[in-house]
């Protein structure tokens, strides 16, 4: 019985940690609900975007200091064969309290258009969503000053 308790205890921990790593699929049906709630910072990124990893590193550092910042990460890689690579990025402990999403398969253009028809796909792309749910877009890495202003409103 003692062994059984240990096994189930370990199993429970393992299940929790594994589920924590899984990204949810962003679809045309749920995308509005993900991007309508503010104040929040939503960061769009891709495995094919080196600058995105600089941005993720910067936010990871900030989240290590302030774990409860309202930040959502969305991977724009709509290729299911890359799920493990995305999962690896999301495995950073500092991201565990954040919302983590990945585009549904082969829906990249459709989702991009629904999120923001004026966005041409450049990355990283971030949106500060204010209290009223308005989206304020920015292309490229956030500067330290921009991030500080956003953090002051989402902490």
């Amino acid at each position, binding site marked *: 019985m003692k062994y059984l308790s240990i096994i189930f205890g370990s199993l429970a921990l393992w299940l929790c940690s594994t589920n924590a790593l899984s990204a949810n699929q962003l679809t045309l049906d749920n995308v509005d609900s993900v991007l309508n709630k503010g104040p929040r910072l939503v960061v769009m990124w891709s495995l094919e975007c080196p600058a995105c990893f600089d941005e993720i590193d910067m936010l990871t550092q900030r989240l290590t200091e302030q774990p409860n910042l309202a930040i959502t990460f969305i991977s724009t890689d709509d290729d299911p064969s890359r799920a493990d690579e995305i999962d690896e990025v999301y495995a950073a402990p500092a991201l565990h309290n954040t919302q983590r999403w990945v585009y549904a398969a*082969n829906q990249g253009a459709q989702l991009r258009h629904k999120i923001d028809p004026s966005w041409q796909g450049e*990355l990283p792309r971030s949106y500060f969503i204010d209290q009223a749910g308005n989206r304020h877009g920015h292309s490229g890495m956030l500067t330290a000053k921009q991030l500080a202003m956003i953090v002051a409103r989402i902490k």
Partner: protein
Amino acid sequence: MLRLSAAILLILISINSHAWHTKAHKSTTKCEGVRMACAKTVSSAVSSTGRIWSTWAIDKQLYLNFSDDIGQSYSTPQLVNQVPELITTRGENRPKIALDKRNNVYLSWVTPLSKRFSANVRFSYWNAKTNTFSSSVTINNDNLLTGHSFNEMVVTPSGDVYIAWLDGRAKVAAAKKGQRLRNSEIYLAHANFNQGKATFDNTYLTKGTCVCCRLAMDLDNNELPMIMWRHVFGDNYRDHGFLTMKNQTQANPMKRVSFENWQVNGCPHQGPTIVREVIGEHKNRVHMSWFNNAPAASGLFYGYTDDNGTTMSHTNHFASKDSNPEHPFLALNEHSKSQRLQMVWREFDGNVFSIKGMSSKTGAQWSYPRELATAKSGADYPYILRHPSGNYLQWHIQGKPLALIKL
């Protein structure tokens, strides 16, 4: 009891794994088999006899097949790489194909390596005389675990093979000094198998390029490569650079050829396209098209140069960002003097992808854009194939036969 626990553990692991698997793949429509239709991207080139050669990848294997009847039927796909390896087939980073006048078929692709953003540029060719593929080789000669990607290739009629790519070896050197380079360099490799030069040398061309956009290449009047790319000017102004070669290994200085001043510290994921005029009054005019997204200048642009980029024509902003235009592709039309140039690109209105096309005699004035094809999903970028019977739009839609539409 232990056996029971182990059994329960295995069952739960199985349930959990399946849940993740289902989550990640539930909306995938599976296209199965070693079929060109199932490939993510298809790259093609046409021989002087009209044979359309296509290369595409499925599950770590690169394949080559051909059609002699403009896509109505295809040969059995032949395996290019005998040893399986990852092959990049995403967006603008995809396998390349080119032919010489002997109908040898040259193939180049990128294989990602273990470290993020590290990759090698690979190469093989099919010898038309012996009907064999050469062993796959790595083109970049630095033996470093760093970026070598966005390969582009041109081949002269006599078989001079030029491959250019974005190279990260300088980042490794900088890192050893405690510095960080955010941009890439362009390297060029050359070989000629018909003349016994079977090893690719590597030549540094320029530095300070954007790291995530395709290069564009063509040959100049001396059959030396010309290259256009997205460069990083000043404080992250991502406009375009252009260079020609003095000889096979020495580049002329870079010229800036676009001036929209798109300032972004990120990845545009959109590189340019070029083609050189080879006959007539405007022989050697280099036609260029590109995407930019500056606040006052966003969408697709066209311009030309008659002096290798020293001066540029008036810039034609032919597609605004409202239609989400992307990936222009330029080609010469050998079958019409009045509409010598052709251009295609992709647009998206939120529901439907459409391929637009227009033509021009000299580049100074263009026809009104017209819609050539539409698709709801799975739409690749458009390309133009120069076939002896006329130019064709090539448009790959995953799961469907390759679309070849007469322009």
